[in-house]
């Protein structure tokens, strides 16, 4: 007996459903449940239900609120810079010139390198005594004494943002470049006949037609930036004085240093709610 197409199709979906169900949806659900429990994995006592206690503690924890603020600051500033630079890169790479493919490949390199590994590289560059950044800035006369970039609460976040901009601008640029290349040439040719300047062409054709790509790039980058972990963990460990502690770092610290899994889960749930709201707003956009 031969099985019907419909049945065969469903069979093909089974592995994907199993993986996504067990490794993704179960954890999302379990995480939400755990946020209402006090979990102590070392004692072996089963989790005890404590209602909204974790959430009320969380909202009174200035360290958590600060990490939320840091995450928001990091996300907004880095995504805005990445968008502007990425758009610039994309417009530049959209022109035809010799070696364009090679340039495009080099631009892709930061994206392909492991964040955690390059974060160590950045630590070396930012190093106060032997760092190359201080050396260059001193030689250019921009600073007069060496700065402890990562040790100073005023500059540490800036350093993290710069490292993230370096890594993620290529991603934004490539998405936007693909968008640019899908805009029909004829539109530009027609407007040139009408005597349009470069700026009017950008304003009336490029930008509006690029909007879907922009929305997609911004959405992905925003969600990734909200979850940032490896960069901060390696670069600053959340310091100095908690100035670069993001939500993910906070959660990790509470889960694996203090072993408060339930409490850490509630921090995740709360953040997840924020992301959900952003997602819904994005889907409803006109």
């Amino acid at each position, binding site marked *: 007996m031969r099985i019907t197409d419909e049945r065969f199709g469903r069979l093909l979906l089974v592995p994907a459903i199993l993986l996504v169900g067990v490794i993704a949806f179960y954890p999302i659900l379990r995480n939400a449940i755990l946020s209402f429990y006090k979990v102590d994995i070392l004692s072996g006592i089963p989790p005890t239900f404590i209602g909204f206690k974790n959430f009320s503690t969380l909202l009174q924890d200035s360290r958590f609120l600060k990490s939320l603020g840091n995450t928001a600051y990091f996300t907004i500033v880095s995504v805005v810079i990445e968008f502007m630079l990425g758009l610039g890169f994309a417009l530049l790479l959209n022109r035809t010139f010799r070696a364009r493919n090679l340039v495009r490949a080099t631009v*892709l390199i930061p994206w392909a*390198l492991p964040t955690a590994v390059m974060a*160590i590289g950045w630590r070396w560059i930012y190093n106060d005594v032997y760092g190359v950044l201080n*050396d260059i800035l001193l030689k250019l006369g921009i600073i007069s004494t060496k700065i402890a970039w990562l040790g100073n609460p005023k500059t540490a976040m800036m350093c993290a943002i710069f490292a993230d901009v370096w890594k993620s601008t290529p991603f934004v640029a490539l998405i936007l*470049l693909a968008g640019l290349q899908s805009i029909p040439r004829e539109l530009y040719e027609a407007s040139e006949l009408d005597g349009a300047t470069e700026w009017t062409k950008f304003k009336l054709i490029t930008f509006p037609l690029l909007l879907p790509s922009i929305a997609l790039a911004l959405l992905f980058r925003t969600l990734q930036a909200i979850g940032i972990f*490896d960069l901060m963990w390696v670069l600053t460990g959340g310091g100095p004085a908690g100035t670069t502690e993001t939500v993910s770092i906070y959660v990790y610290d509470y889960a694996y240093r203090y072993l408060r899994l339930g409490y850490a889960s509630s921090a995740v749930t709360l*953040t997840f709610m924020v992301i959900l709201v952003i997602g819904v707003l994005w889907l409803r956009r006109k």
Partner: protein
Amino acid sequence: MVKKKIKLFGFFVLIVIVVLFSISPFLWQIITSLKSNEEIFSLPISYFPHKINFRSYIEIFTERPFGRYILNSLFVASCATLLCVFVSSLAAYAIARIKIKGGNKFLLVVLVVAFFPQIIYLIPLYELFRVLGLFNNPIALILPYATINLPFGIWVLTSFFKQIPKEIEDAAKVDGFSRGKVLFRIILPLSAPALATTAILVFILCWNEFLFALTFMIKDLARTVPVGIAMLSGASMYEIPWDKISAATVITTLPLVIITILFQRRIVEGLTAGAVKG
């Protein structure tokens, strides 16, 4: 004419700036890795090694289990990539060609997974793998890596399968091919480029993953490269072996740089597959 030349010159200056911006942090790692430890910690900073020195490259393999980290990473990333591409291609075929009921809804639900930061899966998976005794076992990374990249794989392959002309399948059916045979003998071989695109991207993402690898691989010998390098640091800020770290960084990232340059067209294609159609 002069104006045009100035414009052209400005354009190339910008291109040079973009290229320098992209590669200089990596170049600095290469330069540092070729210096001796004494030269690294001497002032003024030298912008070119006085004497090229490969000692740190040897030491990371003899004094640290760096070779083991590489093998672990290769194994985990390859298995996860194979699993991810295989499972995605099955699901994508069902959605794109069989058009089963609710297929598109399923796709939408799966895509949601791509939107959440990894931290959301961390604690429950930690709990699960603890109970199952999977810590330090490559499975604890292979399954999550395959899963978090599944949305991407299904998305790219669905849009690719939709482009394959229907006539090819119809002809095969006339020849008495079953659906399964059509998929494995015709569609998948025809889709080799799309499968390769997906595989390259997923492999890079798996190779670079940090959070799960840090949490589920507790024994030093079970670690993957990114975590292994992050853990190379000594006990205090002053003990950080920068020579070894930079050598390890170069060894880990050089293959990625080469892959990126060789396959840039495919990577760009894969990265932007969603952007153009979505």
